[in-house]
Each structure stands twice: as structure tokens, then as C-alpha cells.
């Protein structure tokens, strides 16, 4: 090689290296000026970018430290996460319920995001984190609520209060040993888990010919439930359930603006798994007292165990998991062993990691 070409080759290598080297990951955090939460620090130290073939994989590991700049206790927060170059569809949320953050206190929120994009893509920040809502201890709410986080966080908080009351009553009635047995049973119920795939307006063509209608079996309906499920079915083939459809009747004397039916699937071995919920349309008409309505979702759901092994759906059952009245108030059912709340999961995890004294101390806090 002629030495005359060396500078050119070095320039070529430098230019190619600069072109192929991904830009450093960046996350934009934008909160409103009057937000009750102030971002104190944004640590993206663990973030990295790797080129894979013609694409770039960006892992954004960000630890936000937020401070309660309001005069009230904060019970929950929901952050909206959006990828600048993947919209619509590139939208997610990270919510932290079951908090007890006093005025002036700080707390962390972790956001671990992976973006896959072409090597040559648009400029600007890769993702943006904004505030969707904050829930206070008096159940008041702050935020744009684009993700209906007011309703979600209020339900989580009501469930948390219900479950804390339950565990406190167990402690009073049966002592620490009774509480310990209760929490161990709760831990047992939380496993195993299912992987799930949601396909919007579609289904796997391979299973279309094998589809059968599977009726929902509804669990015992609480006497105070404002809604009664009348019937329901979904098209099932193997591990896939499609287009769940449930008919309900409002038996209360108040108009209902929103409700969800919890969805449990049973496999051939008789094991039950909480699959999720079938929500009513939040923008649909209100359900008047005595009126009936049908909720359905044009989605297909595929379930698999952790190792990717399909779960053969043998049966399905449902229960009313939440109701929102037109006046903004809520109803939740009594504690359901099959659908542990986020607070029950947190308390069970606290016991698993730190033992009974930590759980007792936590229940005494509020």
C-alpha cells in the first residue's frame, strides 16, 4: 500500500466510525411548571447504544429522583413515556402506586426502556418522559390524565386501603402467626405467571379453523356489586382467545361511566391464571340504572408459560373488578384471592425479603 494513501484511509475510517457510532442516548424529562412533583435528578448512567446489523438498539436505564413539592402526601404517580420516532404505538407508562411520600420528601422512579430504530433516524431526544398524573392521600388528582391514570391510581389506592385493613384485621384477630400464614398463602398464589401477547384486530390464521366458542363462568357476584354479568364468551383455539364479549346489567340506582371485568383462564390441569381485564369503552355512553350493555374487545390474546410453552385454554371465568359511577365515585369488590392488588404484592414481597418484623412495621405506618 502506498504511503500516499494512508491519510485518505485514515480519514475514511474516521468518517465511517463517526457515522456508524450511535449518538449518546438521551431522555427528555418535562414536567409542568406547576407540578406537585419536581424532578431533582436524572441519572442515565447505565444507558448504552449498540449497532446490530442495520439497526440500533438503545437501552435507556434512567433513575429519576422526584421531590414532593406540594403540601399533601402523595399516594401514586404515573409517568408517560413516549419514543419520539415510534408514534403512534411507541407509548408506554410507568406507574408507582402504594406510595406514602410526605411534603418535601423524595423518592426514586426507574425507567428501563429499549428502543430499536434504524441507524439513520430522526434527531432530537430519543424518548420523552412526562407527568400524566399524581394522586394524593385525599384522592385528589393532578395531571393531564391522558392515560386515564386518575381512575387507575384511585382504584389501586382503594384496593391498597382495603387490603391493609384486611391484613390489620388478621393481625388483630390471629396475631403475627396468623398474619404470617396469610401472607405466605398470598405468595403462593402469585406464582406461576403467564406471558401474554396482544394482537389488535387480528388473530393467528393457523388456528382459525380450530376455534370454538368458550363461555365465561362468572364468579359469585357480591351483593353490593352495581353490575351483574349476564353472559360472555370468547373464541378460543389452543392458547389463543379472541374477541371476548360480555353482557352486563346495571342493577344499581346510579349511572355507570366505566367498568372492567376481570378475566381468569383455566388450563387443562385446572390451574387458574389472572389474564387481565375486559374494559368497557371509557368514551362510550353511560350505563343507566337497570340498563344492559355489552363490552367486547377486538383483540386476540395468546398465553404462554415462561419458557414459551403455550397454555391450552380449557375454561374462562370473570368477575367485576371495578366500577366508576358517573359522579366520579368508585366501587371495588372485596379482596379477591385470585387477583391480588399491587399493595398485597408489595406487602408480600416485603415479607419475603425482610421477614415478619418488616411487615408488621409497615402495617403500623398508616
Amino acid at each position, binding site marked *: 500500500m502506498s504511503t500516499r494513501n494512508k491519510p485518505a484511509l485514515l480519514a475514511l475510517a474516521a468518517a465511517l466510525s463517526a457515522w456508524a457510532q450511535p449518538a449518546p442516548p438521551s431522555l427528555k424529562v418535562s414536567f409542568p411548571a406547576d407540578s406537585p412533583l419536581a424532578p431533582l435528578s436524572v441519572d442515565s448512567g447505565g444507558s448504552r447504544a449498540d449497532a446490530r446489523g442495520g439497526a440500533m438498539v438503545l437501552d435507556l436505564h434512567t433513575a429519576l429522583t422526584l421531590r414532593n413539592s406540594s403540601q399533601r402526601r402523595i399516594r401514586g404517580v404515573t409517568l408517560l413515556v413516549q419514543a419520539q420516532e415510534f408514534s403512534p404505538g411507541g407509548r408506554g407508562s410507568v406507574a408507582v402506586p402504594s406510595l406514602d411520600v410526605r411534603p418535601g420528601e423524595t423518592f426514586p422512579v426507574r425507567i*428501563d426502556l429499549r428502543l430499536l430504530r434504524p441507524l439513520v433516524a430522526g434527531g432530537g431526544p430519543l424518548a420523552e418522559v412526562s407527568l400524566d398524573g399524581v394522586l394524593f392521600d385525599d384522592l385528589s388528582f393532578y395531571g393531564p390524565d391522558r392515560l386515564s391514570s386518575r381512575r387507575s391510581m384511585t382504584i389501586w389506592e382503594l384496593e391498597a386501603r382495603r387490603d391493609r385493613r384486611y391484613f390489620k384485621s388478621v393481625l388483630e384477630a390471629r396475631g403475627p402467626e396468623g398474619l404470617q400464614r396469610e401472607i405466605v398463602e398470598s405468595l403462593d398464589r402469585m406464582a406461576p*405467571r403467564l406471558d*401474554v401477547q396482544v394482537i389488535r384486530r387480528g388473530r393467528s390464521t393457523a388456528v382459525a379453523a380450530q376455534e370454538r366458542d368458550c363461555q365465561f363462568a362468572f364468579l359469585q357476584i357480591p351483593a353490593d356489586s352495581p353490575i351483574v354479568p349476564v353472559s360472555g364468551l370468547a373464541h378460543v383455539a389452543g392458547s389463543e382467545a379472541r374477541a371476548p364479549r360480555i353482557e352486563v346489567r346495571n342493577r344499581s340506582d346510579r349511572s355507570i361511566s366505566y367498568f372492567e371485568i376481570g378475566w381468569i383462564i383455566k388450563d387443562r390441569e385446572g390451574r387458574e391464571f389472572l389474564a387481565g381485564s375486559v374494559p368497557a369503552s371509557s368514551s362510550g355512553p353511560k350505563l343507566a340504572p337497570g340498563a344492559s350493555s355489552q363490552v367486547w374487545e377486538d383483540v386476540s390474546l395468546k398465553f404462554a408459560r415462561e419458557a414459551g410453552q403455550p397454555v391450552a385454554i380449557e375454561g374462562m371465568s370473570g368477575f367485576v373488578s371495578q366500577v366508576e359511577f358517573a359522579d366520579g365515585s368508585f366501587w371495588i369488590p372485596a379482596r379477591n384471592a385470585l387477583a391480588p392488588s399491587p399493595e398485597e404484592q408489595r406487602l408480600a414481597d416485603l415479607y419475603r425479603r425482610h421477614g415478619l418484623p418488616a411487615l408488621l412495621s409497615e402495617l403500623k405506618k398508616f
Partner: protein
Amino acid sequence: MTHPNESRLALYAGNDLPLLEGFRVAIHVRGCDRCSRQVEELRGIRDWMRLQGSETPAGVRWEALASEMRANIRLGLAAGRCVDVPEPLEEPRGLRWPAPAMALPVLLLVIVGWMVQSLQPPLQPASADFVVDASSSGIGVQRDGRGFTLLQPRNENVVYSVSGEAAGARYVDSESGQVTISHVYAQ
């Protein structure tokens, strides 16, 4: 009296001096017997040399000698081509700057890449078969070479669920002890 030196007299004898110098030497030679004799001797030697050079030596055929000399010269040139390392040819003027010629397309590529990068790509409409996966590798959507995934820590107590067109994961953060619920939306 100053006499011209011998070389000047030789040039004068051959009529090789400049006009003015030749006129001066001629005046001196006419009045000086010694220099006149020297000029006559030099002219005699020159005439004899011219006479000797115009005749081929006896026994020598000039045409045959010239042919043999040309043949020897051609043979020498051919042998020289076989063993000689050729000198690098002079590069055409257009290839004299390979470095800028190679760097320029790369520079243009970088500039175009930067311009494309600074433009926001058009928004992609959601297709009918939008898929959201919730598994131990995270909750995410992937389409058209782009992907968006919310990761959760490796935790045995992650609960996945579906609500409408969103998939969610619920777990307890091991560092903070906070329960975290993340969702990705298929819309």
C-alpha cells in the same frame, strides 16, 4: 609588445574569434613574424586533420561497419528492457490526489446522513395487526424495523396482564421496594 596567447592564435587560425577581436589579432599577426609563423603552422595542422578525416582507412567498409553497429545497438536496447525495473510512470494529472478523491464521497455521505437525521420521519399509522408482547424480556411493540419496549428487572414475581389494547407488567423494585406497574399501548 604583447603577443596574443596560443589559444587565441588557434581560434584566429580557424576564423573562430569575434569580428572585433579577430581584427585586432589580424593587425598584430601582420606586423609580428613570430605570431604569423605560429598561425601558419596551426592552419597547416588543421588542413592535415581535415584531409585525414575525409578518407576511410584501407580495408574498412563503412556501410558494413554501420550496419553492425546499428544491430548491436538494437540488441543492447532489447536486453536492457528485459532486465531493467521500469521507473514508475508519471501519474495522469487526474489521479494525482487520491486522498481527496476517496474522502469526498465519505464526506458527502456524512453530510447527507446528518441532514436526514435532522428531519423528523413521518409518523407511522398503526396497522391492523399491531402486536404487544409481555414476557420476561419486557413489554413491547416492534414493527417496520422499530421497536419500543419497557423492560422490567429479572424478577420471579412479575405479573403480566392485558387490559383492552394494552399489556402490562407489575413487579416490586428490589432496590426501592416500590411496586411498579408499566404498560405499553397498542394504539
